[in-house]
């Protein structure tokens, strides 16, 4: 059952990713990406990362993609139907590099992965995943967590400053 679910989600994710790249209309790409993120959340569930699955749906499929769609529609691209992968040289180079990367990945996959000793995070498996993550996040990773909040603040200020843009001379404010 798990295997079947994994294969289904994996096929969905791969297909959606391909559609993101191959679609000509950015809005369609964005919608395929939303579906792909949701299937990735399913894979997270299979990996017993329930908290991340929910965050994936809420933050990625929800917030980030809404931001994307908002910007796409805000720009209101008149001639946004780019000719897909029309540039011949670009296409050849891109697919060649992609194929090289696939070959590299296959060669890496053929080696065994040595995992080393595993740490037992939950002694008898009674913690829920969210509680366990909270415990680790607010103890071992407390400082990075706080730094992250500063990062978000900086990003927010930066986004506002950048998107305010430059006003024409003498337009006042």
């Amino acid at each position, binding site marked *: 059952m798990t295997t079947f679910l994994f294969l289904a989600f994996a096929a969905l994710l791969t297909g959606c990713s391909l559609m993101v*790249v191959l679609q000509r209309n950015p809005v369609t790409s964005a919608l395929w990406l939303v579906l792909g993120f949701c299937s990735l959340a399913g894979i997270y569930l299979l*990996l017993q990362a329930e908290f991340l699955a929910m965050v994936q749906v809420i933050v990625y499929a929800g917030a980030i993609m809404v931001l994307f769609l908002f910007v796409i529609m805000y720009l209101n691209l008149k001639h946004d139907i780019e000719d897909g992968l029309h540039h011949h040289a670009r296409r050849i180079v891109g697919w060649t590099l992609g194929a090289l990367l696939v070959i590299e990945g296959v060669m890496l996959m053929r080696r065994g992965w040595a995992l080393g000793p595993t740490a037992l995070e939950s002694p008898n498996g009674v913690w829920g995943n969210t509680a366990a993550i909270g415990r680790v996040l607010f103890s071992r990773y407390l400082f990075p967590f706080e730094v992250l909040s500063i990062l978000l603040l900086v990003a927010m200020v930066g986004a506002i400053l950048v998107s305010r843009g430059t006003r024409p001379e003498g337009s006042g404010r």
Partner: protein
Amino acid sequence: MSALPAAVPMNWYLALSAIVFTIGVVGVLVRRNALVIFMSIELMLNAANLAFVTFSRFLNTLDGQIFVFFVMTVAAAEVAIGLAIIVNVFRLKETVYVDEVNQLKG
């Protein structure tokens, strides 16, 4: 997190992660629309996240999931800044195609 053996071997998850990452790389390389390039970058970030979660599951530790949490935050910040830049570029150049934005070319 239980220590039960997983039904799906770890390599499958990693292979899926590699496939999605590759698709993202191809997207960045072949597309000209800055918005689609951004989406491809998101694909790559998510592929890396999948690898993190996989190792977290199979090493039976939570650090990988914490890292995914961090990556998601950084991705959100990156998208906010990046889209602001794209909006600005569109205002200046009336285009989002990266090969028409070549003012910095030496």
